[in-house]
Each structure stands twice: as C-alpha cells, then as structure tokens.
C-alpha cells in the first residue's frame, strides 16, 4: 500500500467496553453488521410467512396443530382462516420490503463498505449512523408486535397488504378483522422506519460527497458507491412523503380526521356519524393515500435493487478479470433510473380512478425506464464478453442476478402499458414480475455480496461447495416458483385471495398452484444451507488474506478484517479507476487503485486507452 511520507499516522482505537463496541457502536462496520443481522432475522420471519401462505393456498382446510398453539386466533383447530392469511400477506410484504430489501443492501453492505471503498475512516456522522440503526430496530420490534397482536380480534395482525390502501386501513375496527391495534402498530412501525432511513440517507450522501480520500474523484468510485449514493438520494426524497402519509393515516385512525375517508360511508351496517363506533368523516380522498404511498413506493423499488446492481457490477468485473464495460454509461444509467423512478409512480394506479390522461403519461415514462435498465444489462454482458471468468460462489450469484433481473424486469414492458394493465392489474402476473425483479434479484445481489465480502468482514471464506449447492437450488427454485405465476395471472388469478376454491375459472390452475408451492418449500428449505454456512464459516471457514479475490478497490488494500479506523491511521491515495483488470504490461492481471505510477493507463472510467 502506498503511503505518503508526510502523512502523520494517528490511529483510532476501538472502544473497550462490550456495549460501546458491539451494541451502541459508532463504528460503521459494526452498524453495517447489525443491519445485516436484522435483515437475516427479518427474512426468516418473512419467509416463514410465505411458507404458511403456500400451505394455505395448496392445502386449504388442512389442520397444522402447531399453528393453533402459536396463533390461537388465526388458526383455530390448526386451520388457517382467511383473516390470518391476509395478515400474513400484509406482514410478509412489509417485513420483506422494509426490513430486508431496504436494510441489508443499503444499511448493511453500504454502511460497511461505502466508507472503506472511498477511503474514509468512518461515516460523516457516526452518532447519526448509530441512531439510524436503532430507530430502524425499534420499527422492527413494533412491526413484530403487530403480528402477535391478537387481543379481541381473532387475527394475528393488520390486514391491508404492504400498500395499506385507505379507507380499509383508515377506518378502524368497523371495517372488520385486522383493522384494530395491529394496524396502528403497522402504521407506527413504518413511520419509525422512515425516520431511521432518513437519518441513514443524510449520512450516506454527506460521507460520499465530503470524505473521499485523496485521488478518489467521483469517476474513480466503484459502481457500488454510485449505487449506494443514488439509493440514499432516493431515500432522502421519498421517505418523508411516506412519513407524512403515515402520520395522516394514523390521524384518520385515532383522531377521526378525514384525510383519506370520504363522506357518506356505510360500513358494516353503520352510516358514518350515526354511532359512536363510526364517527363522522367527510371530505377525504382514498386516492390521495395511493399517490402519497406510491410516490414513495416506486422509488422504493429502486432503493431495493440499485445496491444489488452495484454489487453485481463490482463482482462481475472482479471475477471476469476485466474492467467494467461502459463505466460512464453505467453511472448515467443509475442516475437515469433514479431520476425516472420519481415520475412513474402512477403506473400502480392506472385503474384507481385517476385521470386516464395521467395514466397515459405515466405509462410512457414507465416504459422509458426500461431503457437505462437494458443499458445496464448490455454492459454486464459486455463486461463478461472476452473475460476470463472465475466461477466462485459470489460470481454465480451475481450472474444469477443478471439472469433474474432480465426475467423479472422485462415483463414491466407488459405491465407498464395502460391497455394491458386492464387484464393484468392485481393478478399473479404482477406478483411474478415484482417478486422476480425487486425481491429475488435484489436478494441474489445480497447473496453475491455476502459470499464476496464475508472474507473481508470476518477473515474467513464461506464454504464454497455449500455455497454452490445453495446457489443451484435457489436459482432453479426461484424460476420454478415465479415463472408459472405469470401464466396464473394471464388466466386471471387475483392477488391476495385467501383461497382459490370459490371460482370456476381458477380451477384449471390447480396443478400450477401445487407446483409453485412445492418449488417454494424446497427453495425455502435450501436457505438453511446458507444460514448453516454463515455460522460454520464464521468459526471454521478457510482463513482469508487481505485480498483473497485479487480485486482492485480500496477495501482490499486494508487488513482483514479492517481495523477500527479502516486504514490504521494511514488513509490511502488513489491513482486510478476502480476496475483495472487485465491491464497490458502490468505485472499482475489486476492493478489496485492505490498503485502509483503512470506506466499503465489512467483507467478513469474513460473508454479506450487515454493517457
């Protein structure tokens, strides 16, 4: 590692006490691991719920005695009731979107590696960073408590889907099971989560703009940093809107305001304002909630996937032993996706009663966002083309990301068209689309990141054979789960149905429903391999060097695991772009960013050879 002679060495030692070191830590690396742990717990909860949902859809009416013990209200006699199913739908979505897809990619890996990759000692505001995690953690606890809040209602949680459409979510208990205290806790949890994410976003943006080390120009940053930065900007601009919406929804529920509740409602046999159980509401707009929700909700999709895109670019280049193809185009594509992401929220609302002319505008903007997404895919293929590909487990997952991103993203061309939304809206086609692209692809990005960075974080490799088995089952499994859901949607199967037995036109789909459930059960069980691998490798994994993958960026220049202040008091100086692999004339097939000298190209992300 190159060290400037005049640079004074001043190491920062970690705090000694257990609580300051591991619990209320100010160290971005510890906070990153805390976020990852939170996601690892939340994803188990979310997955367990999807397992229960599949059991209920494929074997309706079956008694699972253990469920009665856990949820006496939701599964009397061990048989799941519809309100239990719907609260599973709600909690699964909320848990996954907020506490898995928003925490691990950004708060987890972003927190840990953004400061190291730009050559900083820590985040700009370590205290704010600690706050953002613990606020998020409180949100998680509140959400968990909503699951188990049965009380007087015979349900296990809120009913509303992760979108919580008003007025169902605004009316309170009069609207049926799942609208009581559980729903209040759901709204409060999301509001708390918004605050935590805002604190995190401020920190990411400030750190990236102000704390890059000498020589780390913007166009020398790894693509991961561009992705985390754009994600933080999206979070900063979108979460306040959801926070505001959440507060208004809570006021409608507890203070009997009427932001989302119109006049003259007649619910469960009671006219608004005629009885104490249903106070007078007047003048609210249900569609307003949808605008507020989706103004956040659509950027949220990119908040979930952009870090995965960054990690994938990073890992593809490393294991193809080749510079990222079209670095600048990749940066512009990330920006374009981020920017356009704010102007397409209405495509969730074509049939909501919104103006059909706005629907047309949103539709055309929506298909435009496919362009930068396609550009990214082309550049990933370009990166692989002519490479010398090493098929490590992180590489397999990154390649899986590309395959799944294409498979899931491309059906956006169908759903984004106003006309085709008429048959497709709220069917399993939508479910298939967003699970593949926002759910599974993002998760593959995180698996890739975990297998890739684990050696740096803990000084040991994860077990490769186990990792590969995990990859094969998961990769084939998710295709088997989600591709058939497209055809279910074409037949007309609606989302959020507790059972499909009521409709004649759905009967033909029974074999597909069973196939998907079996694939889901196998895939979910395969995730145990991942957890086993994590724990085993932590103690028994093969020991890792400082730069075990022969990579180029700054996280591989420092010790493994990195010291408390990341670079042991000597901040690195950067001389070149992030992905200088296969440089002609260089002694190795990789040139690290810290390597001085101009005998090789600048590799500033420019195209071709420029000196």
């Amino acid at each position: 590692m190159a060290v400037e002679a005049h640079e004074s060495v001043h190491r920062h030692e970690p705090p000694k006490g257990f609580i300051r070191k591991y619990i209320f830590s100010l160290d971005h690396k510890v906070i990153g691991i805390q976020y990852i742990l939170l996601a690892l717990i939340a994803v188990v909860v979310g997955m367990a719920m999807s397992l229960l949902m599949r059991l209920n859809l494929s074997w309706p009416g079956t008694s699972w005695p253990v469920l009665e013990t856990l949820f006496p209200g939701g599964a009397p006699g061990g048989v799941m009731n519809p309100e239990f199913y719907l609260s599973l739908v709600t909690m699964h979505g909320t848990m996954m979107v907020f506490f898995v897809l928003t925490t691990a990619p950004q708060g987890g890996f972003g927190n840990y590696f953004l400061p190291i990759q730009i050559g900083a000692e820590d985040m700009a505001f370590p205290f704010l960073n600690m706050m953002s995690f613990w606020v998020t953690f409180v949100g998680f606890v509140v959400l968990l408590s909503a699951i188990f809040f049965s009380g007087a209602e015979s349900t296990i949680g809120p009913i509303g889907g992760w979108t919580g459409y008003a007025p169902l979510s605004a009316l309170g208990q009069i609207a049926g099971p799942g609208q009581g205290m559980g729903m209040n806790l759901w709204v409060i949890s999301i509001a708390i989560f918004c605050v935590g994410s805002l604190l995190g976003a401020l920190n990411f943006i400030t750190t990236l703009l102000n704390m890059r080390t000498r020589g780390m120009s913007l166009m020398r940053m790894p693509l991961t940093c561009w992705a985390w930065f754009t994600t933080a900007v999206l979070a900063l601009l979108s979460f306040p809107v959801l926070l505001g919406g959440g507060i208004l929804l809570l006021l409608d529920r507890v203070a009997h305001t009427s932001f989302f509740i119109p006049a003259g409602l007649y619910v469960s046999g009671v006219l608004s304002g005629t009885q104490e159980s249903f106070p007078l509401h007047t003048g609210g707009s249900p569609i307003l909630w949808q605008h507020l929700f989706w103004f956040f909700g659509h950027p949220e999709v990119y908040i979930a996937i952009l870090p995965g895109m960054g990690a994938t670019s990073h890992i593809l280049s490393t294991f193809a032993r080749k510079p990222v193809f079209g670095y600048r185009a990749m940066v512009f594509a990330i920006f374009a996706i981020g920017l356009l992401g704010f102007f397409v929220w209405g495509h969730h609302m074509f049939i909501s009663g919104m103006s059909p002319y706005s629907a047309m505008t949103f539709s055309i903007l929506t298909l435009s966002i496919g362009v930068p997404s396609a550009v990214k895919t082309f550049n990933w293929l370009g990166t692989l083309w002519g490479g010398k590909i090493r098929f490590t487990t992180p590489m397999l997952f990154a390649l899986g990301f590309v395959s799944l991103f294409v498979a899931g993203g491309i059906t956006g061309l169908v759903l984004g068209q106003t006309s085709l939304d008429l048959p497709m809206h709220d069917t399993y086609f939508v479910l298939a689309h967003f699970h593949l692209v926002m759910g599974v692809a993002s998760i593959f990005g995180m698996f890739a990141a975990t297998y890739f960075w684990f050696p740096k974080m803990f000084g040991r490799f994860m077990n490769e054979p186990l990792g590969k088995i995990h990859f094969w089952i998961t990769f084939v499994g998710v295709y088997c789960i989600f591709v058939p859901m497209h055809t279910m949607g074409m037949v007309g199967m609606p989302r959020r149905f507790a059972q499909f037995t009521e409709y004649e036109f759905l009967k033909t789909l029974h074999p597909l429903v069973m196939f998907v459930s079996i694939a889901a059960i196998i895939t979910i069980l395969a995730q145990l391999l991942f957890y086993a691998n994590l724990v085993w490798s932590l103690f028994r994994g093969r020991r890792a060097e400082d730069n075990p993958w022969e990579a180029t960026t700054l996280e591989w220049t420092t010790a493994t695991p990195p010291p408390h202040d990341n670079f042991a008091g000597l901040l690195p100086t950067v001389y070149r772009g992030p992905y200088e692999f296969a440089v002609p004339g260089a002694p190795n097939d990789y040139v690290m960013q810290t390597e001085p000298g101009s005998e090789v190209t600048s590799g500033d992300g420019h195209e071709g050879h420029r000196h």
Partner: protein
Amino acid sequence: MGRVLAVIIWILTLGSVALFTTRKWWFPTAISEHAAALDRQFLITIIVVGIAFTAAQIGLGYTLWRYRDDASRPRATYTHGSSRLEVIWTIITAVVFIGLAVMGQSVWASLHFNQAPAGAYQVEAVAQQFQWNFHYAGKDGVFGRTDPKLIDDSTLNFVGLDEADPNARDDAVTTALAIPAGRPVEMILRSKDVIHNFWVPQLRFKQDLVPGMAIRVHFTANTPGKYELACAELCGQLHFKMRSYMLVLPEAEHRVLIALTQEQFQTRMGELLAKYQLPVSGE
C-alpha cells in the same frame, strides 16, 4: 462450472418460453369488443418480451460457455467499453420500448378518452364489503334518487334507494349483473365502504370502485353467457369470496328483463342464472 450454468440458464429459458408458447394456460376466450385489439397488443408485446428475454439469456449463457478462465488466453480483453455500442443499444431499446408504450395506449384511449356512446345501456354498481349490488333504472331508463342516509342493509335497501322518488318505482337492485350483448354499456361505479375492483377476466376489463367517487366506464360485451365476476382489490376478511355473476343477454331477452318489476326481476334473474352455464374452465 460455467458450462453447467450456461446449460441451466438455457434450459430455464426454454422452459419459461415453452410455458407461454404451448398456451396450456392462457387468457380465457374474450367476450368484449375491445378485447381483440387488446389481445393483439398483448401478443405483440409478449413476442417482443420473449425475443428480448431469450436473446439476453442465450447471450449470457454464451459468454459463460465461451469465456471460462482457461489456459488458452493469458488475460482477459482490456477494454473500458465502446461509446458506439452504448449509443446503438440505447437508441434501439428506446425506440422499441417507447414504441410499445405508444401502441399500448390505443385500447386504453378507446375506452377511457371518450364518453360512452349515445344510447349506451346504463347500470350502476354499488360495491360493499363482500357483496355486489347492481342498480337498474327500469323501464323509464332513469335512476331513482339514492342517498347514503337511506342505506339500510337490514331492510335490504343496499344502495339507499329513495322509495318516495317516482323514478325509483320501476328500479331494481340485484346482486348479479345483467347487460345486453352487442350494445355499449355504461357503468357507474360506486362503493359504500372501501375500495373494490370490478373484474371479469373474459371482459378484459378492470376498474376500481372508490368510495366517495362515481366512476363512469363503458365497454361492449358481444357474447351472451354467464361469467364470473370477482373483486380484485383487497377489501377485507372475505375478499376472496366477493364473487358474483355477469350475465350477457341477447338484447331482446335483456329488454324483457329490465321492464319487469323489482319482484319479477329477482325471479327472472334467478331463472337466467340457472339457464346460462359458465364457460368450460380453461377455455
């Protein structure tokens, strides 16, 4: 490893494409006037999607197959990209995607950018938690006055019809929908409590019913028959049971039906629901 992954990607691609091309599971046969154009637009789109999907996956598999880390080459190709390629593929995808987006507006525009044609048959839908109510104007073609204050589920006045209004005397309210075949239908969609969604797969049409709004939509159903009507927007506990039927009747039969008094209307509706059969599942 690379070759195994390449082959698996190709097999998964083939399987996915086969699921669509064999058409074992496909849209039910359409019954509405706009459906032909809509189905055509879907076919064009899914072909473009299928080609792009297949090409990308085959390309991905090919790079994995060909560019393994073998001894034949000392190093990977050193390149940072090609501006020309970036421009080419950006323009091509932009033209294809935005072209699709523009084409995808035509059916939408035909349904939503115009008022219902003159002479359209009007019927009002009033959804409530787990039940559909359809309000027919009767012989005079004029809807009786309704008021939320008059709604009383216990006396079966589900839509709040004002019995004192002379226009209300020939009105009928039923839980199933009956519309004429081959004649434009204008529906006025309302909800009493939460958001519901009017969804008949064969109609290729879907629209939210939003409390506080009266949303006017129109379409023409061509094929007489009985079709299942579902709620497609989560509306609470028994959402999955909020089912009813849409009867598309030959115009003469429909004309007779709507001229009946409320009581006769209910009886006749029961007979018609028994007379017509649902389309065979899977068609």
